[in-house]
């Protein structure tokens, strides 16, 4: 994976929990442009492991002068976002991947409906710039619990087709009203908590929308959990996975070669075959089907964990 060593050009506190970071090339060289919905993977060295989290780009996809991300501090996470909040300052050097996109707009759509919940607003910030430039009809709905928590308000332009729903102010998002009566050729995109993604998919199905017009991205980082061990089939090596480490991070720290891209359980790149499993895989990805999960023959090391006595991976 091509990496870029960038300079942290600006850090801004948007809300008590959300900071915006701007990265630029140290020599001022232009960065690769991207497409709406793309993300970068940020490296955060932490002792003997390098933590890598993916964040949606929120800046203009056509602007090569810098990349911007918005990071919400998750105090119950593995520490990636709190590292960004506490240890990354203006002037630092930071290593990021080139942009990749797992949540691109379907350009065949006649209209786009974007629904972001909480920090799930982030991929839409670049998408709406792309839609504005291409003069495509769209509407954006942003739901947040309270105005104080709603980092998106500072990041969204004011426009008639951009709607902010603050549930504390009695203005809850009504998915039925949003989706009912949309013109033929509309596609809906949701990013936010699992419950919101499921609610949009449900409502769309009830209204007879085709599955191909319903898109979503869950912005999850790997969850922490109880420590466990895995065995590498080719070498017999035993790799311990710490509580605040993902399986993928543990494999990388142990020098086991493994491919990855999104590190969020969405792209499928790190899919690994399980050669022996005595216990229960905790599947936290969005890649494997229900049947594949039940079979316990595959695991997505970027997100998933294990409880049991023996897990052997085909690596």
């Amino acid at each position, binding site marked *: 994976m091509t990496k870029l060593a960038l300079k942290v050009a600006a850090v801004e506190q948007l809300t008590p929990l959300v900071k915006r970071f701007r990265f630029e090339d140290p020599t001022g060289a232009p960065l690769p442009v991207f497409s709406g919905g793309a993300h970068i993977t940020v490296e955060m060295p932490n002792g003997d492991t390098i933590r890598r989290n993916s964040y949606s780009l929120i800046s203009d996809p056509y602007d090569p002068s810098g990349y911007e991300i918005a990071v919400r501090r998750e105090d119950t996470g593995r520490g990636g976002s709190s590292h960004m909040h506490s240890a990354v300052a203006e002037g630092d050097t930071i290593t990021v991947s080139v942009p990749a996109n797992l949540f691109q707009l379907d350009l*065949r*759509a*006649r*209209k786009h409906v974007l629904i972001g919940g909480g920090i799930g607003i982030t991929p839409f910030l670049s998408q709406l710039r792309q839609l504005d430039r291409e003069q495509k009809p769209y509407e954006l709905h942003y739901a947040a619990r309270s105005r104080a928590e709603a980092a998106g308000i500072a990041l969204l332009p004011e426009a008639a087709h951009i709607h902010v729903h603050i549930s504390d102010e009695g203005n809850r998002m009504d998915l039925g009203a949003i*989706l009912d*009566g*949309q*013109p*033929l*050729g*509309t596609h809906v995109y949701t990013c936010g908590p699992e419950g919101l993604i499921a609610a949009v998919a449900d409502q*769309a199905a009830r*209204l*007879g*929308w*085709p*599955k*191909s*017009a319903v898109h979503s991205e869950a912005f999850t980082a790997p969850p922490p959990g109880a420590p466990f061990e895995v065995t590498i089939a080719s070498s017999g090596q035993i790799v311990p996975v710490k509580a605040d480490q993902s399986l993928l991070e543990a494999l990388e720290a142990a020098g086991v070669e493994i491919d990855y891209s999104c590190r969020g359980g969405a792209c499928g790149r790190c899919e690994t075959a399980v050669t022996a499993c005595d216990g229960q895989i905790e599947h936290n990805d969005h890649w494997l089907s229900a049947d594949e999960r039940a079979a316990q023959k595959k695991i997505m090391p970027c997100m998933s964990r294990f409880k049991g006595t023996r897990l052997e991976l085909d690596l």
Partner: protein
Amino acid sequence: MPNTVFSPSIESRPTYAGLAPRPGAPAIMVADEAGAAAVTHLATVDATAMAKAHVVLVGAPAETSDALAALSPAAVQTVPDLDTATPIVEQLLSQARMGTQLFLAGSEGLMGHISAIALASGMALEDIQMEHRGSIARRMQCVHCKGITDGVTTDPFTCSHCGLTLFVRDHFSRRLGAFQGVCVDAETPGDIPATEEIRP
């Protein structure tokens, strides 16, 4: 006469699963005389099928449109040919909402042409249901002059626009809603195989 079963071919060759009920969904239905029987059958399987259906009948006699009108659809329009049907279908699609189903029944030319218009309007392929009835004549695009020849029943055939002798391929363009016709004697002009009737 049921839905025609076509011989297995390349992946590009469309197959038609038949019209299946989508109870309660608003619908646009386009059929020719042979296809009208598939619409009638759908109405017997699903009593709710017609209430929100706008039916466009192409080149069908009065008794066929009377028979469909008796099923009490939201509207029935009878038009002489596909050219006349096109702006009507485009208008219906431009006013349609998400959840609308498109039911096409009849010749491959009708289904190919109307489904191409629907896809261009942003309709999803999974919302287009098709059932082949009647003639197996094909709607062909000449890959050389791009002209469309409808109602092709022989292989090879003569392009109605540029006059080349064209081989009938199973290669289908969803965007154009037509099969591709390729010059059969490009290597050796005049070396033309015997003309055969096309088969399902």
